[in-house]
């Protein structure tokens, strides 16, 4: 022992925290900012190119099919419920509940992927037809990469929770899924409004 030193003892501080206290949360927010900026940019490209068209969508092009779009937005909105429950279960370190809600969230993530496939099929235009087609595909593809990334993450976390390898750190990771999920699905509500409603209600300049 060294006497006479002024020290701050941190040995009994917690090792697991959630939300903004946690270091990984800041990484998640950082990537939300980056990807959010990316989505804003593709939306700006959409409106920038729209100015070049007397008619939007161009003549002989049907607007994107509504059904997959409505289903996607609906399923995404519904998914907020299990994600919120997952976040709560993780924060109270309830492994059984976390497992349950991770499985539900994984199913939702897979549903997003399948519905995105139908959304592509329902665009009614190819990327190479004209700038309208290009930008619609760009918006869907950009957002789809985020869906795929989230699906991969949730599948891996779920797998970990079904092994003996799980640690408290993973509860924090599971909780961190929530802000990214809200961003992923919330941003799509806005982008879907653009993709599906602009060609219907703002067809000419």
């Amino acid at each position, binding site marked *: 022992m*060294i*006497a006479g030193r*002024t020290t701050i003892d941190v040995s009994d501080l917690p090792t697991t925290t959630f939300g903004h206290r946690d*270091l990984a949360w800041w990484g998640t927010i*950082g990537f939300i900012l980056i990807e959010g900026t990316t989505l804003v940019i593709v939306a700006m490209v959409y409106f920038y190119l729209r100015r070049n068209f007397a008619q939007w969508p161009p003549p002989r092009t049907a607007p994107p099919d509504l059904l997959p779009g409505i289903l996607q937005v609906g399923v995404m909105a519904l998914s907020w419920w299990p994600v919120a429950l997952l976040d709560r279960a993780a924060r109270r370190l309830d492994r059984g509940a976390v497992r349950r809600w991770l499985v539900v969230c994984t199913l939702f993530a897979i549903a997003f992927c399948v519905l995105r496939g139908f959304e592509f099929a329902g665009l009614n235009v190819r990327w190479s037809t004209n700038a309208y087609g290009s930008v619609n595909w760009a918006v869907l593809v950009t957002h789809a990469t985020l869906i795929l990334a989230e699906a991969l993450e949730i599948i891996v976390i779920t797998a970990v929770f079904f092994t003996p*390898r799980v*640690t408290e750190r993973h509860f924090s990771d599971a909780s961190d899924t929530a802000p990214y999920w809200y961003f992923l699905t919330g941003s799509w509500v806005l982008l879907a409004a653009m993709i599906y409603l602009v060609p219907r209600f703002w067809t000419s300049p």
Partner: protein
Amino acid sequence: MTDVAAPPRLAAERIGSAAPAPDVAELERTWHERGGFWGWLTTVDHKSVAKRYIITAFGFFLLGGILAAAMRLQLSRPENTVLGPDRYNQFFSTHGTTMMFLFAVPVMYSLGLYLVPLMVGTRNVAYPRLNSYGYYTYLVGGLFLWVSLVLNTGPDTGWFSYVPLAGPEYSPGKRVDVWGQAVTFTEIAALVAAVEIIATAFKMRAPGLSLHRLPLFVWAQIVTAFMIIFAMPWVAVASQLLPLERLVGTHFFNPAEGGDALLWQHLFWFFGHPEVYIIFIPALGIVSQVVTTFSRRQIVAYPAMVLALVATGVLAFGLWVHHMFATGLPQMGMSFFTAASALIAVPTGIQFFCWIATLWSGRPRLEVPLLFILGFVVVFMIGGLSGVMVASVPWDLQVHDTFFVVAHLHYVLLGGGVFPLFAGFYYWFPKFTGRMLSPALGRLNFWLFFIGVNLTFFPMHELGIDGMPRRVYTYLAATGWGGLNLLASIGATIIALSVITFLANVAWSLREGDVAGPNPWEADTLEWGTASPPPPYNFAELPVVEGRGGLWSRSEARPVVTGLRSDLREVLVTTVLDAVPDHLHFQPSPSVWPLLAALATGVLFISGIFTPWGFVVGAALVTLALVGWAWPRGKELEDQRRQEQRA
């Protein structure tokens, strides 16, 4: 189970007066990075990764400089035949791309990756493996660009790759795709570094180092990191849309199908202008640290300095259109961007006055780092003044695409970036290596650089006013441009001599330089409170900060943090505003997965320009690498458990 809901306790409740001394030998074992080639590949120590970044970026600076020298040789006299037009196009495009994307931006944030954890008093960056991934991604991108150039597939449409020239119609082949994807790699690396710096600076500061005590270099790095986050995605989108246009036939930039060539310029410059400040703002941070240390007093008007950095970062996003004055914009838009371009001089002016006041009221020592800062003041001011000139639309239209702009941008980037960078090298070299650089060679380095830069670029103002266009590989004798071009080429030779002097200084000093000791400049900030070079764990005991900066305000008691485990890679996480100890965080150990993930990213982007299936295969490999990276296993899993079971 630990008490996960416990709120952070105030530091005052934890202050004691007796604690066991740290087990340095155990810390050494815990944070030790393996030696040999494998250890080299797998390191996650922020200092090792950042040193690699700095050395690699400097290597690219030399390569970019060789291209510049070749161009100056070609232009040294009329109708020269050293370089043909095609090679010249590749050289100036690769020179610009290299200097901006592979040198200037990475070298600035890599200084942050080395210094921010030390300046805030922690053991590593927030996400050590991600940091390693960022470096390897950057390296893959840089090598891809340069191997392509050697294979005669270097980009040839400028560092900005304007469409329609860079589009599928006018640039068939793979050269522009190489540009697009090489840039993509550097974007990923920069974004990763930005997230690292923000999380480290906000959440890993030593107790007591509240935001209003943060060194200005760290503030500059934070502002830059946010700028990277909001600026880089623009070029990321652009550099993906362009290859798509060329590879799968999209029409974003094709006016015949409703696209728009000007869209490219907006996307590029909304990134491109902030990019200049992404280089310049860290340099401002260097200037503030050097001025503080060598004036031997705290900076004058610290709050104004911080606000000026933030204001510069914000205003930098409102200037991009001044790169597009010649595209026929509405009068209102041009007036707005002229005003915004002039406005950004205000926060920079505030900083200049504060530095002068600091030097004036301090006891300045004219060491080599301060000499380079004085060089920065002169050279950058000339660049700033020509910037005010080109901010004016009528003048800009006269000199657009002439050598006047080449002169302006080199004055700004060399003055605002490279002079402070040299100052930073001379200042922190003792910390990086434990040895001082030779001051005599340093002064020679400075004077050669100062004379060389002015001799090279000042005549270009006149050449531009005379009408010599940029990006031409030769000119006729009758133009009368030969004399000034020869002068510029002589200046370039002097710059080369200066850089050789610097390299010689580094080589000599690494072996023969004076041993530095922990704090050779008697500086204030925390990086000088540990050994030179710092041990792998940075500090045996994390410091407790009692005033601005850290060391000058230390009391006799020299308070420290105790209770961090030395048998595990454990770091202290503190609160954002006041740096109150909040919790303990376990950090990952060395790993090869970041390298594998970066290689998979390489397959994704590089093979993707040859076949769309490359994207599919690359994406699958990236997925595998990320799963391997995240999967808990082995000793690390045990260590994580041990850490969590402490309570």
